[in-house]
């Protein structure tokens, strides 16, 4: 690594932080979009037309990304809360991060299958 690099070598804790930022940012902008699409409920036909778009493959892949982002952010958030409220837990922070990654994949992969399957079936 170059001495001028701005990358902080904080190992897993740093990656946990970076992922937490990116997923939080992503989920927030999906939320803004989601408020707009649900607010179309006052016009039923428009609501149905717009929600049909969510069924195509691009939006389904986007939804899979949302699932991974949401689950990661939720579980890593729990890890942060645990460490903040019970400082002793910081000793286990690397193991906790490994658990967060494992559980994100364990929930995300089957979820992705459920979300994508209807599209492949047509």
């Amino acid at each position, binding site marked *: 690594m170059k001495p001028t690099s701005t990358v902080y070598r904080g190992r897993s804790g740093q990656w946990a932080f970076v992922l937490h930022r990116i997923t*939080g940012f992503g989920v*927030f902008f999906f939320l803004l979009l989601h408020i*707009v699409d649900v607010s179309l*409920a*006052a016009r039923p*036909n428009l*609501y149905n037309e717009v929600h049909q778009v969510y069924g195509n493959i691009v939006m389904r892949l986007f939804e899979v990304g949302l699932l991974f982002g949401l689950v990661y952010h939720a579980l890593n*958030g729990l890890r942060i809360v645990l460490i903040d409220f019970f400082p002793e837990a910081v000793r286990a922070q690397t193991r906790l991060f490994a658990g967060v990654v494992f559980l994100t994949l364990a929930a995300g992969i089957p979820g992705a299958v459920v979300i994508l399957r209807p599209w492949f079936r047509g």
Partner: protein
Amino acid sequence: MATREAEKTSGTEARPRPAVRTRQSFETWSWFFMRISGLALLFLALVHFALTHIATDVAKTDYKFLSRRWDNPLWRLFDWSLLALALAHGLNGLRYIIDDYVRRPATRAAVKAALYTVAGVLFAFGTLTILTFKAKTL
């Protein structure tokens, strides 16, 4: 008045505040809010996703589905809690991100103003949608 004043004085003299207990600033409350709202959202957002994105296929979450769900005021309360908490939690998170990366004071103020405006408008929009929804037959 005099006695209360005396109590106050004797109180502080008898038990000085421990050095670690600093004044509770806005940022302390912000930190606390992120933890508490985060815990609530863990439940609200994951239940919402499991029910309306996993248990129900996204293609089936149409107007009829929405009408049936919002027939129950408790689901409206659930959705509104999710809306309010997620928006506040996300807005505060975005505020951290802006403070970290947008360094020029004028740009920072402008970005924050834009963000707060959009979030405020969408919060009003979402609240109105949940409160005023009346199912129509198509």
